[in-house]
């Protein structure tokens, strides 16, 4: 393939990939008559910047609340997952203990059972704890990812021992050395796992759908989903809400792409 042919081929492919984004933005900034009109309009005649506030003013779906819920859940889910999984990964990798291997296998076994498949009993458990419609129910059950723990363990196995030994000589225990030496020297890896975890948390749908029985506890994905079953279809509002829901992740993509790509190359797994 010649160089020109290569660029033609890849540009055609790129156009196909960008079509959905074009439609999203076009519809979000148009009026409904322009979207549903007889003739296809490639661009809105007048860009409707006023559409931006509409989802927040909508009375049928509390979109603003759902964005707040998603941000709170996304951030706490990420921080919490990194906290518990990195500690466990370090313990399993670095602290000698007789039964560590058995415990590690008990963690690995859970990888066989995808969380999505056990949503029925998980829901049963969470509802018996009284956590339906609460941040607790949305966040806590998802923190204990065997896979993330596994990744941290693998990473810490390859972490240079000399740094900890130096800390040990300075009289720090495991705990002190971990926070003062290991974590500050692993920030790249933490950032990579954090971006992936945040994206998965933000985009997850099945669990928030099950837990969010009451609209006040909906995450943004559940709110978007509810638009599909509404009686009145308000196209520009729905597309504007969808566009706003993607914004935080576009932000992650633009500013954290290095870690994101590194994280994917390291993990190769999407939740």
């Amino acid at each position: 393939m010649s160089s020109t042919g290569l660029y033609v081929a890849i540009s055609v492919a790129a156009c196909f990939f960008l079509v959905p984004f074009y439609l999203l933005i076009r519809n979000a900034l148009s009026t409904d008559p322009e979207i549903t009109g007889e003739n296809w309009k490639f661009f809105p005649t007048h860009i409707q910047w006023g559409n931006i506030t509409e989802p927040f003013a909508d009375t049928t779906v509390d979109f603003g609340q759902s964005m707040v819920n998603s941000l709170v859940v996304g951030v706490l889910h990420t921080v919490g997952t990194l906290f518990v999984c990195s500690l466990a990964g370090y313990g399993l990798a670095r602290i000698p203990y007789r039964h560590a291997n058995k415990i590690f296998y008990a963690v690995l076994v859970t990888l066989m059972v995808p969380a999505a498949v056990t949503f029925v009993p998980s829901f049963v458990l969470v509802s018996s704890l009284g956590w339906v419609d609460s941040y607790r129910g949305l966040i806590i059950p998802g923190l204990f990812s065997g896979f993330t723990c596994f990744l941290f363990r693998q990473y810490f196995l390859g972490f240079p021992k000399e740094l900890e030994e130096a800390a040990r000589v300075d009289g720090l225990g495991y705990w002190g050395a971990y926070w003062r030496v290991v974590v500050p020297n692993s920030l790249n890896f933490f950032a990579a796992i954090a971006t992936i975890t945040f994206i998965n948390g933000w985009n997850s749908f099945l669990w928030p759908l099950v837990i969010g029985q009451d609209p006040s506890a909906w995450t943004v994905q559940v709110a978007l989903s509810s638009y599909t079953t509404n009686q009145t279809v308000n196209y520009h509002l729905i597309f504007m809400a969808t566009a706003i829901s993607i914004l935080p992740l576009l932000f992650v993509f633009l500013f954290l792409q290095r870690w994101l790509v590194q994280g994917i190359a390291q993990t190769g797994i999407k939740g």
Partner: protein
Amino acid sequence: MSTTTTRGLASPAPAKVTKTRPRRGPRGTRTFNFWLFTSPFLIGLIVFVYIPIGWSVYLSFFEARFTVTPSDFVGLDNYRQMLTDSNFTGSLGTFTAFAAFIVPTTWAVSLGLALLVNRLRFMRAFYRSVFFLPTACSYVAASLIWKMSIFNGVRFGLANTVIGWFGVDNVAWLANPDPPWYWLVILTARLWLQSGFYMILFLAALQNIPRELYEAAAIDGAKPGWQTFRHITLPQLRATSTAVILLLLVAAYQAFDEFFNLLSKTTWGRPPLVELYYTALGQNQNYGAGSAGAVILTLLICVVTLFQGRIMGFGRGDQSQ
């Protein structure tokens, strides 16, 4: 790989090997430290993973509707009910058809994109970002774009507009199980969402192929293009390809979001998780049957992940990467 026990750097002189140091530090024993680090995670794992699984198995042997503390033991009745329920077995068929299409196509598209991007001299980052961007989109958001804008059954949907230019009548893409156009909607949505992610994996693998291999092949008279690709690139990508195919399979197995949102309330095109959702949390709240279905699915996926574990090399001793 040898199953060596030295991790990290081997020390130059045996005398330097640090034996277990005397315990020190303010917090006593190693065992205490081990539990200090691991117990938050392990307790959570027991409560939110092991207990639900156990509970699920327990419920699956009981008649449990609208209750999670049943008393009516029915043995394998729920399993029999699920396995003879045409909806549930049909959902397994739906998954099989879905996987048979989406796994090879995503594999081919993501590999193709990676090969193209890998050959670019300039604007490489730009094109990589374009193909990667859909990963930022959730399945729900993509479902909305697909359902309401691209494959909208009326004239102003993009697909109907385009075929209209060629004088073809409107197609009700999602509203009709026959002909099953809804498959086109579902497959293109997932293809668009997934391909960029797996492209990144292939790109990373392509950059790890030693250049000398290509040079040696050129000296041996291999023509650039198909021959080189067939005999150098593909074999070098075998591990990544296998991993990608398994990841795609497991992901397809758990498909829920786009089916639920694209085909809301329809009775056709239900994959296993959607079927379970309606069984357990729908009108009848049949936790017993839902749990039995979950156990069946888990057993099925265990087979796949065991196979996957083999390939990813879990439990082959500790090796630093």
